[in-house]
């Protein structure tokens, strides 16, 4: 289902729309939330909150402002960060930088797709450590280019292109 098809369903407030929305994006959102909020239970609460926000604020989204997926990923990141702030995780920023989304694999038996996970683990081995870091910071943690360049100690101008190369590697592997 494309974004456009999904949006038609969502605007009609069809119950099926929610099911599709959940099937398409809940895992992606939950992975992002978990890299930020490291507590599984709290992450589930955040996921609930995120879907409530998506559903209630759907009218404030317009395709002219960007991708629907982008809009919901931003909601997931912002809600997670709000959660961290409310919990006074003062040292969280530092801790966040020390681990990344790949750490979610540590708890491999809890992964939703074990079979996929076997494939992805091999892929992760192939994926350059630089790529894991840069995708983790930019996509999962929502760092700005400036913040990422400082964190990774690379020139600001190369953040974008390095990330692009990593995504290209990923697309090659996923045949996208």
């Amino acid at each position, binding site marked *: 289902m494309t974004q456009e098809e999904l949006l038609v369903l969502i605007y009609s407030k069809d119950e099926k729309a929610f099911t599709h929305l959940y099937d398409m994006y809940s*895992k992606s959102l*939950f992975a992002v939330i978990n890299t930020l909020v490291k507590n599984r239970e709290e992450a589930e609460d955040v996921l609930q909150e995120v879907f409530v926000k998506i559903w209630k604020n759907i009218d404030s989204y317009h395709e002219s402002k960007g991708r629907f997926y982008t809009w919901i990923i931003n909601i997931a990141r912002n809600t997670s960060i709000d959660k961290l702030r409310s919990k006074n995780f003062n040292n969280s920023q530092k801790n966040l930088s020390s681990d990344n989304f790949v750490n979610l694999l540590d*708890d491999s038996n809890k992964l939703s797709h074990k079979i996929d996970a076997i494939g992805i683990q091999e892929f992760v081995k192939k994926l350059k450590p630089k790529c894991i870091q840069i995708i983790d910071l930019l996509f999962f943690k929502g760092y700005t280019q400036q913040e990422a360049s400082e964190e990774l100690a690379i020139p600001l101008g190369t953040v974008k292109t390095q990330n692009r190369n990593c995504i290209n590697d990923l697309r090659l592997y996923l045949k996208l």
Partner: protein
Amino acid sequence: MDTKQYIDSGILELYVYGLLSETENMEIAALAKEYSEINDEIISIEKAIVALSSTFSPFHSVANYEKIKTKLELKHGKIVEMTPARSKYTYIGWAAAVVLLLGIGYQYQQLNETNNQVVEINSEKENLIKTVDSLGIKNKTIETSLAVIRDPKNTVVSLGGQTVSPASFAKIYWNKETKAVYVDASGLPKPPKGMVYQVWALKLAPVLTPTSIGLLTNFTANDQKIFEVSDTGFAEAFGITLEPEGGSVSPTMEQLYTLGKV
């Protein structure tokens, strides 16, 4: 516009990630509308990052999915269903109450019927007891009659039919010791209404002197047709005449049914 160079810059990835300003977002959204290769590239990047991140998603419970649906009040349909379901239970409740009432009513009726049957059976029983009693009495009477008739000291007098009714006959059992007289009137026809048979003890010489020794009252009701009449110490013959109800002082000889000498 050199779309390839634009795509290679890596800005579309940041666009999908959501790291650009609102102005940049609107520019790219417009470009995506204009250039299909830009739009296709955006969709591919999005698919790649959705696939990557989804793969790293930890397990999350189905219960959470249900919780979210509840929060979004998406279970309205089910709640609406609950209302008729609840009223259905109400109907079932009422139906059960009605059935119970009907059941009690039926049981009450059954009880009444049973009580009535008990009363009926009791009255039947009483009737039967009465019948048995009356049969006992009857039996006793018959036994007494038989005993009287069978008494060897009896003098049996056969009375033959006379002119009025030649086919009639009767028997007199007369115990000369006890003077008791019994009449077997089974050979007599049923008397007409308002009439009654009268039994006479007759003295033949020197003059025919009849003495009434009784009426065969309740002739029809007496099944055995054996009647006890008044004691007689002396008689030379017996006769039975048909007389008006209540009997006569002297016999109506024209209505002499049977006659026999001792």
